[in-house]
């Protein structure tokens, strides 16, 4: 797992100026995705899609948060380092890393999840998203 320093060193992260409009836009996009998630009923066919949607919703909030802190992150793995290194939320960084791995497994390796497991994953992604959203709004 890459730490924040390595991300900076390998140019996966760049310093950036605070763009208010971009942050607003990302928040709006994230919110829309949660609405889409609600509209989609969880079943065997939609489980992975719903995980993809809520993961993207979470990532957009993290992107907005990183922009607010003056960074532009180009690699999902570096969000783990950002949460740990900048936000100082070690446990949440580990949790995010799990979601990232699940999402990658679904998107790149065609993995499938049971409905029960998918439900837990979705719920926890949304809990983490709310937590970061509160930090963003502070």
């Amino acid at each position, binding site marked *: 797992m890459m730490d924040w320093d390595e991300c900076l060193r390998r140019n996966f992260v760049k310093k950036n100026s605070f763009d208010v409009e971009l942050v607003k836009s990302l928040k709006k996009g994230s919110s829309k995705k949660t609405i889409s998630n609600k509209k989609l009923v969880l079943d065997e066919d939609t489980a992975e899609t719903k995980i993809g949607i809520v993961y993207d919703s979470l990532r957009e909030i993290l992107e907005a948060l990183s922009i607010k802190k003056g960074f532009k992150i180009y690699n999902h793995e570096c969000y783990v380092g950002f949460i740990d290194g900048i936000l100082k939320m070690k446990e949440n960084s580990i*949790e995010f890393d*799990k979601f990232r*791995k*699940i999402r*990658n*497994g*679904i998107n790149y*390796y065609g*993995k499938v*999840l049971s409905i*029960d*497991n998918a439900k*837990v*994953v979705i*719920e*926890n992604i949304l809990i983490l998203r709310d937590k970061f959203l509160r930090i963003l709004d502070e």
Partner: protein
Amino acid sequence: MNNRFYVLFGVLLIVSMFVCVVALEDPSVGTGGEDVEQIKGLIGNYSPLDESGDVNFSKYQPFKSKAEERIEKINLWLKDNASWLKIVFGMVPEISWLFAINIYILLFFLVSIVFNGKSMWGFLEVLNKKIDLVFFETSWASIFGLGVFIVLLVTKFFTNVLARPAYAFWALVYEYVFSTWGIVIAIIILVVIAVVFILLLVYAPGVLIILKKKMDARKEAKAKEAAEFDKKILHETVKGITGQD
């Protein structure tokens, strides 16, 4: 000394003889005669024996205290205004031991069928699942028990099947216990109620605080348990996807 004693004894004897003779005859009291007749009538009502000495219950009207008269009035009022409660209790509420026994039977079955539903209906596996009702957690067995209880209540099961033996039991208890020990038991009950009431007044705030703390702790423990469960699921999911532990 002896002379004085004889004089005193003689006077007392004369006075007592006079009193007894007076009591044997109806008092001739002029204007008060009507009252005496009323009193005599009342006394006659307390005995089931008529003037000829035969048993005649139709003339028997037992003495009623003020409290009994008030209870009668209250019961009459309940009958006129709260008769709809018959649906709930199987009988019109009244201040009587029968009604108290009825309530006891209802509470007994409420506890057995509803609150103890898990043991009662636990053999039906589908009812063993828990349900969270915000303020407390219960099982589907208790909900089912509540349904059964309501059905039994509406069909007057408790009243028809159980109130009669209860009444017979009560008659037995009344005959042999309460008619003799009623006042003592009433005093004990009153003392217990008074003590409980005072204890409630003193300890209620503290108890409420403890209850709230317990509720919060329960919520916290439940949230922790859920988080642990989720953590386990997430770990297993990631392990299943990446193959890494």
